[in-house]
């Protein structure tokens, strides 16, 4: 009983620790990455006792210290209670979504089997969407409680944008649910461990030589769903090209224009935690989660014959390492996107969401259904 509780607490601690620290490091990567893209040097002024050599470590310490020692200003005409509550509402959903994301298969110590996932819910994906849908409140309430016209405009834009893209995001995942037949994220990750060869129906067996060696990852079975989901996920993080709620050039900073100090840091951390969450979701749903191609529970089994048996701990280490690498890749991709593309106009954001992503997601569901019925 106590051991079970300790294991769950340890898993929750590890996940929160990794996500929050990765969010902090991403803040530094974003500044250095943007400098690299724009041919600048970037953040290199943080020196501790005259020592500026450790750029990452110094910035990681200096940034939060700077925010925490700034004045925490609450607009006198605003709503003091909600103004303080809003940053917590923004950070909360991005962190709790990680409860259902599997970061490895099972770890066996003695005769105790530990599922490498904080909470195993049979409604996993729905839980993710439910929590993600609560992310709007941080934006809306923060905007309203500031009692500022720019804030309010940003908040109204944010609520409309996030609700619109939730619809497209939810529909794009339906294809994945139909293919793997479960809402449980751990089961979806396990389902991506087989090879496409084993899924092909009799009539299409000739394709086996061509694509049969590929693992049955979501991106190969549902390529359109991946593009739709990734677009919608970037829109949900409210970053360029979808940064209309912030709109620096016309709304100053949109919904968090009246925030300073620690509370602004929380909005900032929420944005980067959302990047990590989006990356982890894309990894789990479309890129095999913790799966390493051809790695089974006791070693590699290659489709061209041959196997390479590995001890259990090495396998678990490889899986967790693969998951981390994939998440880091998608975090980097989102940062690259933010510094490479221009932003949309607001009507373009709405048109993309409702007139392009939504119909395409419906078409994807239809095509997937036809293929599944035909293959039976």
């Amino acid at each position, binding site marked *: 009983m106590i051991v079970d509780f300790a294991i769950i607490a340890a898993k929750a601690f590890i996940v929160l620790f990794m996500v929050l620290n990765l969010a902090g490091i991403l803040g530094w990567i974003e500044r250095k990455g943007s400098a690299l893209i724009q041919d600048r040097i970037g953040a290199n002024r943080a020196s501790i006792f005259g020592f500026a050599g450790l750029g990452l470590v110094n910035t990681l310490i200096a940034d939060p210290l700077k925010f925490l020692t700034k004045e925490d200003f609450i607009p006198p005409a605003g709503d003091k209670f909600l103004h303080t509550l809003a940053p917590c509402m923004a950070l909360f959903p991005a962190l709790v979504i990680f409860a259902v994301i599997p970061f490895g298969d099972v770890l066996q110590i003695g005769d105790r089997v530990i599922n490498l996932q904080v909470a195993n819910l049979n*409604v996993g994906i729905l839980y993710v969407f439910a929590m993600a849908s609560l992310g709007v*409140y941080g934006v809306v309430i923060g905007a309203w409680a500031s009692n500022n016209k720019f804030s309010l405009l940003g908040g109204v834009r944010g609520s409309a944008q996030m609700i619109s893209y939730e619809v497209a995001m939810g529909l794009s995942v339906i294809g994945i649910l139909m293919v793997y037949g479960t809402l449980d994220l751990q089961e979806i990750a396990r389902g991506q461990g087989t090879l496409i060869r084993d899924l092909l129906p009799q009539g299409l067996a000739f394709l086996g030589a061509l694509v049969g060696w590929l693992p049955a990852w979501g991106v190969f079975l549902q390529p359109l769903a991946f593009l739709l989901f990734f677009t919608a996920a970037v829109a949900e993080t409210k970053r360029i090209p979808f940064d209309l709620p912030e709109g620096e050039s016309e709304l100053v900073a949109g919904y968090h224009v009246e925030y300073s100090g620690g509370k602004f840091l929380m909005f900032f951390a929420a944005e980067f935690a959302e990047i990590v969450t989006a990356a982890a979701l894309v990894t789990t749903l479309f890129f095999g989660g913790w799966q390493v191609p051809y790695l089974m529970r006791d070693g590699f089994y290659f489709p061209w014959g041959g196997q390479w048996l590995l001890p259990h701990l090495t396998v678990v280490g490889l899986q967790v390492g693969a998951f981390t690498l994939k998440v880091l890749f998608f975090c980097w991709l989102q940062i690259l996107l933010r510094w490479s593309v221009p932003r949309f106009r607001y009507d373009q954001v709405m048109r993309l969401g409702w007139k392009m992503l939504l119909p395409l997601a419906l078409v994807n569901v239809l095509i997937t259904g036809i293929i599944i019925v035909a293959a039976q």
Partner: protein
Amino acid sequence: MHLPTLIFFTLAAFLIISSLLVVFLPNVVHSALALVTALLIISIFFVVLQAPMVGVLQVLVYAGAIMVLFLFVIMFLNLTATEPRRRAWLSFAGLSALLLGGVLSAMLTQSEPAADPVAATELFGSPEMLARSLFNDFVLPFEIASVLLLVAIVGAVVLAKRRS
């Protein structure tokens, strides 16, 4: 008192407080947020009652979508002025609350408690069971409801177009 009962009564107390706040808070935005809190607590009840699917849908649909639209409309129309308290409504509200309480307590004392409420199987309230009953036993009402929603959407679009 064992743990589930304790959790139930604690949550129920919070639920009643937040529901009362929905009615009595003078500011519309505060009322809406109190309603969100009440909906979240109800969803915890569903999870405790072995129906995680309904609980999650409650958060997704009501707290995550409908209440956001409420807030959106409140902000769009700038209804942030405080509502004057209406004394006359209070007596009607109190009377109907008393009636409802009477009916409910009469019904609850009449009905017999289930033999073993915790004996619900693992599958009860799971997505599979819900989908099975929706698409096998209740497929006609389900489809009629979806057509009704479609009609409502088309109607809303037609009404919005006419005004402009």
